[in-house]
């Protein structure tokens, strides 16, 4: 019974029109929650959260650095899963979702890198330190660039989607290996440097805004992802009647 329900849902999900309609209803909700959480989280993090006893107020960068870093990785996973679904079940919508993930993920990775570097300046006294987290973020950014470059190198949209799906799946297998090896490499070369975010115990007032920001970032990602996928649907299905009707009515 459960399985049947899931299958019909999965099947309907594969229909671009259905996906377009349902996400049209979801976008305001996700967008609203995203705006609310980002606003509340920022105000809370900047005004009300206490400052760190070691790092002072530069600590407040954590409220964007950590969510961006989390998102950078989960978007890569989302992209690979969507790509895999598109590859196995030949689902067009999944291909489009995977394609829409890449630029958002690259942005998040860049935000994580940039905020990490800016945070590093007052903490370590240098704009760039070969810290394990920053280094893996840098490699992740390269992986994103690879997927985007491969995506745009193909003439055929179908082949582009398939090829980048394979690349992102290969990337997903590699991400834990890369992370592990970079961390190991880091301990080898810089023993006992203190990392930016790993605190033994953060007080409640410090991590609550962080939680709010993480939720906000996730909702923001969902919103933009749906918007991009909807555009992708419009572009690829522009010969169908429903898209033509929909576009000309606006």
């Amino acid at each position, binding site marked *: 019974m459960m399985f049947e329900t899931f299958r019909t849902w999965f099947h309907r999900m594969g229909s671009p029109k259905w996906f377009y309609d349902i996400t049209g209803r979801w976008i305001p909700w996700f967008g609203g929650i995203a705006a609310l959480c980002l606003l509340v989280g920022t105000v809370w993090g900047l005004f009300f959260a206490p400052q760190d006893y070691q790092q002072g107020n530069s600590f407040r960068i954590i409220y964007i650095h950590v969510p961006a870093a989390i998102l950078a990785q989960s978007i890569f996973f989302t992209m690979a899963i969507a790509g895999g679904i598109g590859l196995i079940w030949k689902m067009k919508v999944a291909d489009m979702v995977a394609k829409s993930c890449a630029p958002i993920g690259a942005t998040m990775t860049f935000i994580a890198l940039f905020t990490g570097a800016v945070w590093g300046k007052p903490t370590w006294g240098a704009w760039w330190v070969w810290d394990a987290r920053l280094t893996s973020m840098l490699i992740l950014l*390269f992986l994103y660039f*690879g997927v985007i470059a*491969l995506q745009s190198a*193909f*003439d055929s949209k179908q*082949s582009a989607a398939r090829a980048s799906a*394979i690349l992102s799946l*290969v990337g997903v297998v590699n991400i834990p*290996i890369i992370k592990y*090896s970079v961390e190991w490499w880091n301990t080898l070369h810089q023993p006992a440097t203190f990392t930016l975010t790993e605190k033994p115990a953060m007080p409640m007032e410090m991590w609550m805004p962080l939680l709010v920001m993480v939720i906000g970032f996730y909702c923001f990602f969902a919103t933009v992802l749906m918007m991009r996928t909807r555009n992708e649907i419009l572009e690829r299905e522009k010969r169908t009647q429903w898209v033509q009707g929909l576009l000309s009515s606006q």
Partner: protein
Amino acid sequence: MTDSSVGQISTWRAFTGTLKRDLLLVFRRRSDIVNPLLFFSIAVTLFPLGISPEPEFLSNIAAGVLWVCALLATLLSLDSLFQQDMADGSLEQLVISPHPLFILVLSKVLVHWLVTGLPLTLLAPLLAVMMFLPDEGFGTLFITLLLGTPTLSLIGAIGAALTVGLRKTGVLLTLLILPLYIPILIFGTGAVMATSNGMAVGGHLAILGAMFLIALVMAPLAAGAALKISLNG
């Protein structure tokens, strides 16, 4: 039609047949073997010239330089892995032959390693002398390259398969593959440095071996799937 269908279809024969054919092709065009080796030697030479010929300094960076250059030499030779087969139509024949595609891909990757990875590994100790690698490091360098270069060929095959159908590959292959090479580089050089510092390297080698096995299982499958896509690009 001949009436002699004596032999049976055998995947092993397809594997060795492809292996023999590709080795023969390389043998006919020897520059495919020599060019990566020349690149390797020249690139290594640039470091003393570009940074400093001081023995103490060079011995510090020797392992890293040798590994990075070996990696780049492999990368540059990957471009042609499937290119010829794509152009002359024999790639189509590989794909529709009654054998699992990953076996045939494996055979091509093996040839690639035999003509680039293996010679690079053999040449590396020689260049290591010029880079003043500490004596203890030689064995480890050789073993890590022996374990690491097949992984480089395997992972590289995925990138080569993904880009073979494109009109202009350019640096795309490098962009796709280099980030995936980083773990191998880290553990390869890490092992050599560890021996130079008198530490045990069993762990490093085990990890390199594990990465090789993962690549051995997964890369031919991924490359095979990528080839099928590239044929339709």
